[in-house]
């Protein structure tokens, strides 16, 4: 297996995540796109771990996984709060600070 096939897959997933973050209006969908980007990073870490024959990459992947879980928890709590205050989870409606 080539190292690059995994890295290019990761690059594609990351680019798809960026596209989702820019285009999506629903905040839950934006969070899902962020999750896509984190998965791309994990693919890269594990691929490099296999390439360099060191287990550090896999340890880092586990740390990223933990952070991602924490991020989703706090993110959804914030979305819930936004929904409760604005009766909408549409990010275009969150414009209180707009001049």
């Amino acid at each position: 297996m080539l190292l690059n096939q995994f890295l290019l897959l990761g690059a594609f997933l990351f680019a798809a995540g960026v596209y989702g973050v820019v285009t999506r209006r629903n905040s839950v969908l934006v969070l899902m796109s962020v999750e896509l980007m984190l998965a791309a990073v994990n693919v890269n870490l594990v691929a490099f771990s296999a390439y360099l024959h060191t287990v550090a990459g896999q340890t880092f992947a586990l740390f990223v996984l933990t952070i991602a879980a924490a991020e989703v928890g706090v993110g959804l709590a914030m979305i819930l709060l936004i929904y409760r205050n604005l009766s909408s989870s549409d990010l275009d409606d969150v414009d209180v600070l707009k001049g």
Partner: protein
Amino acid sequence: MIAENVAFGIIAAAMAIGAIGVVRTQNVVHAALFLVVVLAGAAAQYILLGAEFVAWVQVLVYIGAVIVLFLFGIMLTRAPMHPTEPMDNNLRIWALLPSGLLAIVLGGLLVDAFGRDKIHLTAPTANVEITNSIFRVYLVPFEVVGVLLLAALIGAVVLARKD
């Protein structure tokens, strides 16, 4: 060798379709289910790379917990199943610019840097190596992550609580 590459190709194609589905579908629940495809595909790739422990943690944490959390989020925010207005904003064409540019630049850079470097897999990573890595080399970051999880837990409860 060939079997590995065929398996990679199939899983990667499924992941690519899933990723496009996550960012393009107009149904929120379908997006969550497409995300399951991507994350399960990532777990399969980890097994292909000999990282069994990370693969199963991925299945447990992501598919088991995070997706359920997403579905709860969809349910609690009453996301429309059959939306009257599109789920995307009017930046669809413009969003292709940064993401396409990123994919092209990153892809070109990777091809330039790593060319045809091969991964020589010996044996799957033993769990004992990962435990040694976490609990010896990266013990302090591990503890910090524990504290961070606690902080995130309390933060989520404080934010979501009704009072």
